[in-house]
């Protein structure tokens, strides 16, 4: 195996832009949920549930969660790239992170759309 440093994995820019975009979506949703909570002022479980029984609200929450998982995937990947130098261990951690974020997405669907 050559020891030369190689560059040009051209996903750097796309990921950077994605992290900004998803941050914007999360900021908008955070504002929305604060407004909704101020209006509904839920105190019981049923009142909390009624917020997310609304289909539009459930959909927007799902968009928010997907944005969060993309954002977290890029951030956590950067941490592994900075601190884990062994390529094999790094690949394993990257796959575990990816599996977790995909799993969380499925879990979010299950919670938001359960009958």
């Amino acid at each position, binding site marked *: 195996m050559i020891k030369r*440093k190689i560059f040009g*994995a*051209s996903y*750097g*820019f796309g*990921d950077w*832009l994605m992290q900004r975009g998803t941050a914007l979506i999360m900021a908008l949703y955070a504002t929305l949920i604060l407004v909704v909570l101020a209006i509904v002022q839920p105190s019981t479980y049923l009142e909390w549930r009624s917020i997310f029984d609304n289909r539009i609200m459930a959909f927007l929450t799902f968009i928010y969660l997907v944005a969060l998982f993309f954002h977290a995937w890029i951030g956590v990947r950067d941490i592994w790239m*900075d601190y884990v130098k062994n390529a094999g261990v790094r690949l394993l951690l990257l796959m575990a992170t990816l599996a977790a974020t995909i799993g969380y997405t499925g879990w979010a669907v299950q919670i938001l759309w359960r009958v």
Partner: protein
Amino acid sequence: MTTRTLQFKIYRYDPDKNDAPYMQDFTVEVNTVTDRKLLDVLVKLKAQDDSLSFRRSCREGICGSDAMNINGKNGLACLTDVATLKSPVVLRPLPGLPVIRDLIVDMTQFFKQYHSIKPYLINDTPPPERERLQSPEDREELNGLYECILCACCSTSCPSFWWNPDRFVGPAGLLNAYRFIADTRDEATNERLDNLNDPYRLFRCHTIMNCVDVCPKGLNPTKAIGKIKELMVRRAI
């Protein structure tokens, strides 16, 4: 004539003689009229102990050779006022680079990153008879970029550069990359942007802004990096 007694704690390491680095204490009488800058005092200390090693050349903030860590912050000894320094003055070599001896570091990695951005004008059209001209507005864009003296204060204060000195270009290199991207006489903008579109080379910058804080020339690498990213966005959409 007024004098002031200053205590120093200076990082000492001679790989031929010492197993490990250590801090050595010095006491020096500083003449507040003639010893204005830290470099003046360092020259005095060198007279006390001629084994003390540091780089210096122009002694006026142009050559960038006497960069060091002064009381925890990177700076040039020749531009640091002695009057502003708290005693004891703690001097260490620039962080994150291999130490050759005392306050002298090996800058190979730093210059390797600088060379990787092709720090020269690329223009394949035949040069005009006299010179390639720029409008005053186009020339204005190069202010705050061309003044970099490559002292490495910024890159060695950057945590992203500490973690990945072999893969992250660092603030000094990126400032100079933008200096040539911004130059209207340069024709390699696309290639320069391609060269930086890598998760490490440009995008390890997390806008910590230590570089802006320490630059002895008052330059703003973070702003230049932001402009590179802005150009990439404009190219992509």
